[in-house]
């Protein structure tokens, strides 16, 4: 009996939060688009569109109401930023301090590329420095020798398998 009434209470509580979605498909799509750019404040990195938490549900409802009232996407996003701070944006803005995250992400592979190129050139040059040891080969002989060597290495690698 107690359980029944508890259930009834829960259903009422919950149905209140879970308002049916408006029939206007275009509006709904727009609301989802905006929701995708906002972070659900009580979740870990989920967007308002993706989260099933009650707060996200309420925020989606708010977005819909504001869209119906004729506000633009930028206005709605600005409203949320004002209320919750920049943190509400799932994608850090590409201006001000936040652009540093983008520059950093660009810089990291660049530094990596430079490092790899430096190492490779350094190691290749070492090889050239040691090259005089085989300088009495003619270029033709050297090529023939190296192709045989490559074949042998490949051969050795294959026989190692069985």
């Amino acid at each position, binding site marked *: 009996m107690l359980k029944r009434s508890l259930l009834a209470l829960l259903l009422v509580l919950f149905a209140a939060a879970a308002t049916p979605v408006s029939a206007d498909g275009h509006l709904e799509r727009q609301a989802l688009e905006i929701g995708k750019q906002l972070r659900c404040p009580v979740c870990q990195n989920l967007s308002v569109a*993706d989260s099933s938490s009650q707060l996200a549900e309420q925020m989606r409802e708010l977005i819909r109401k504001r869209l119906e009232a004729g506000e633009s996407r930028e206005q709605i996003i600005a409203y949320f930023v004002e209320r919750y701070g920049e943190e509400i944006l799932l994608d850090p803005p590409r201006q001000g301090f936040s652009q540093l995250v983008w520059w950093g992400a660009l810089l990291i592979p660049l530094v990596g590329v430079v490092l790899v190129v430096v190492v490779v050139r350094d190691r290749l040059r070492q090889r050239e420095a040691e090259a005089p040891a085989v300088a009495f080969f003619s270029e033709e002989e050297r090529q023939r020798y190296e192709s045989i060597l490559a074949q042998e290495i490949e051969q050795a690698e294959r026989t190692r398998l069985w």
Partner: protein
Amino acid sequence: MRLGDIGQIALVVAFALAAYGLVSAALGGVHRRPEMVASARGAGYGVALLVSVASLVLLAALLTKDFTLRYVYENTSRDAPLDVTLSGFWGGQAGSLLFWAWALALLGAVVLAVEFRSYRALMPGFLGTLFAIQIFFLAVLAFVSSPFQQHPAALPDGRGLNPLLWDDGMRIHPPLLLAGYMSFSVPFAFAMAALLSGRLRREWLQPVRRWMLVAWGIQGAGLLAGAWWAYHVLGWGGYWGWDPVENVALLPWLTATAFLHSVMAQERRGLFKVWNLGLVIASFALAIFGTFVVRSGVLASVHSFAQSTVGPVFFAFLGVTLVAALCLLFYRLPQLPPEGHLDSVASREASFLLNNFLLLSIAAATFWGTIFPLVSELTRGAKVTVGGPFYQQVNGPLALGLLVLMGLGPLLAWRRTSLMALWRNVRWPLAAGLLVGIVLFALGVQRGLAALAFAAAAFTLGSIGLEFWRGVRARRAMTGEPRPVALWHLVARARRRYGGYLVHLSMVLIAFGVIGSSFYQTEHVVTFRKGETHSVGRYTFTYQGMAEHVEPGVVAIVAPLSAADGATALGTLAPERRIHRNWEQQPVSGVAYQTTLPWLEDIYVILSGWGDDGSATFRIYINPLVSLIWLGGAVFLLGTLIAAWPAAARPRASVLRPAPQEVLVAEA
């Protein structure tokens, strides 16, 4: 004496024994006294026993619902079923740390049993490093954040476990990740042992590679289980959200992947020695970082970090470990000269260099994105969020490069590959890639980027297929075996190589799934009245009405939809909302999903709300190819097992195939 006291005493004694073991191993190593090293080994087994006692006590307290223990109160309740109660073990901070320490103690005992005799010279350093790590964890457990803290009087009922953690995934995902993090300690301890003892020739490579592969495999399985959990439980239609917890778990896996490749250049050619040791150190440091970053609250905000009991202690440990390890590496630099040089850019070793560059770029960018909110808060007081779109844009191109390279690298020979040979190897996979790209484009995959990514995956798939095909052909030519037998023997004879290629295959499968679902997922929000039918894409759905289920501690609301693809009925999809007692504010969605054939699309349905008039609103996702990710996961496990399987002591090559004459002579 109460149960909790026994657990606490076991922890304190284990701490003391680990301290003894550290001193004994160090003295034994410095003064070359084998009996002291053997005594330290005994202490290792003792610590394993004592931490097991503490863990079993905590399990017993959870199972008997002993609410005198604060940890039990916080992580379970009277009406929680058995399996949920067990998950409470790693559901909270102290318990998860105990699990970590327990797993490390057990793994340490296994490693000692397996490797002690083979690597005696490395044992003092290995034991010392392992004990140092244990001492830290046991100190935190015994003196800072103990799971055996008691309430003055027993409370009537516990608060219960967070409902998100009730799912089956919770039984497998967190313990796998904790076990993965913990197991990076073993390769690290072997590397430290090599540096400490100065034995830096080939000896240490084998145990480090073997145990790195084990740690890497567990971590990979944990990541996959996490993706599975997110997809099937969290109910947002995706499997990877780039949230900080996931990101930090990915980091050591990436550096370990880099290590597994670059270490081959050291085994073969004596290259990249310092770099490889650096990768082992980085993997361990990132594993510690991952264990703690979540617990310390540092990523949530600077303030919660300052209030956390364990955060500062952990970062101190991380700092000391890094400084000590890097100083040691620096001190040994003169003993680590490269034994050769690169001969050509078109070589296996150069491709490994590129592989490392791509993997580390992904790791560094992910790390940077994860800590950026903290940087922002510290420097200007305002927090920002770095979400999925950032990581997709930054890591996407790098991952695409990795995918192509994965097809190219194995086709290159060591030292140098002539362009002719490269062309011979590459032409068929290239044709496969081009064909797939063009066909897809013609079929209406108009997004150029998607077609490009699919083509890259097809190229690599072709290259892996070619490797297997060639191997089978060569074997058949020699033995005349039927194809399946030849394949079986091929893999069994060269486990490391073909295990690795199977792992590559799994990455390609996962790539197909990721590309398909990130470019072509569609999402629909549909409201049904009872009995109504709506169509979504190719499919039609009929709503059958709502029902409630009352289970102990949970109320579930179920709203079944029957689905059909044209005239073919697909069965019933029954998404739910589950409301847990004490956690009414956090209802959990029960996802319903079905994979359709032959399209390999997932129909993924969430119940998102209902009205007083009996109508219900659903969120319906059509997710193409996601099931390939789980298939890839299975192949990943298989490949890892094959690659890590210990090699037979002696190759039995001559049993099945008459060896060439010269070899027989040489052996006789």
